[in-house]
């Protein structure tokens, strides 16, 4: 087993964490604008963004939009080698939420839904952290041979 196989899982969960943090930021923006007239709540498709960031979507290569790494030279590393990946999601990838209950000031932030999403995302972020911690512990015990 090569070293990259060992750290593959950590790398994957690291990318997922970055995207979770990004989503947390977007939802925080929605909650912050709960009283702003004409504000449209946003979110992004986490599954698609993660597939983009890890290159696991059929068609392979991780896209620059999701990982923030541009490859302009044959010698440049793609984002898959654990080098890049800022977890940035372009605002073009973000989508507007569908209005469920229209309000008179054209603001469509559903605070209950946003809070639920926020809590859900926070728990999933913590889950990602635990996966990484578990992998690190496994690696350490393999290294120490205890």
């Amino acid at each position: 087993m090569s070293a990259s196989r060992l750290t593959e899982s950590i790398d994957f969960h690291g990318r997922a964490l970055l995207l979770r943090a990004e989503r947390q930021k977007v939802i925080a923006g929605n909650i912050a604008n709960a009283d702003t007239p004409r504000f449209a709540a946003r979110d992004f498709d986490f599954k698609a963004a993660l597939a983009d960031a890890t290159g696991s979507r059929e068609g392979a290569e991780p896209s620059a939009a999701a990982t923030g790494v541009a490859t302009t030279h044959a010698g440049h590393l793609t984002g898959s080698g654990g080098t890049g990946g800022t977890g940035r999601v372009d605002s073009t990838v973000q989508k507007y939420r569908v209005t469920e209950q229209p309000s008179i000031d054209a603001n469509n932030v559903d605070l209950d839904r946003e809070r639920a999403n926020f809590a859900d995302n926070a728990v999933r972020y913590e889950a990602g952290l635990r996966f990484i911690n578990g992998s690190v512990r496994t690696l350490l015990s393999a290294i120490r041979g205890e």
Partner: protein
Amino acid sequence: MSLMKVFNISGSAVSAQSQRLNVVASNLANAESVAGPDGQSYKSRQVVFQSQPTADGGAGVKVSSVIEDNAPAKRVYEPGHPMADQTGYVTQSNVNVVEEMVNMISASRSYQNNVEVMNTARQLLQKTLQMGQS
């Protein structure tokens, strides 16, 4: 790190909501004010929120302006009042106290929501700092 930006976004919201609360306090304090010698009574003020996009796809909020309400002022018949006009009416402010109380509750709830968001972000960051140590 996007979680750091949560503090900027929620911070801007907390600041905007506290300004709203400030305006509500000013309105409520002047709810019973009567017109001065110039005949101008206190006018109810309202903040206008505006979304402020950050460079990386987040959305903060700011108070773009404070507008004055042009609703007609309250007029109370009180002939003995020193500020009464010839017909015996005193001009008071145009503050709607019920509306302001609702405004206050809404501002306070939004403030709490944003503080909670910042607390969660802080906990997540702390746990991220301890990554690989446990």
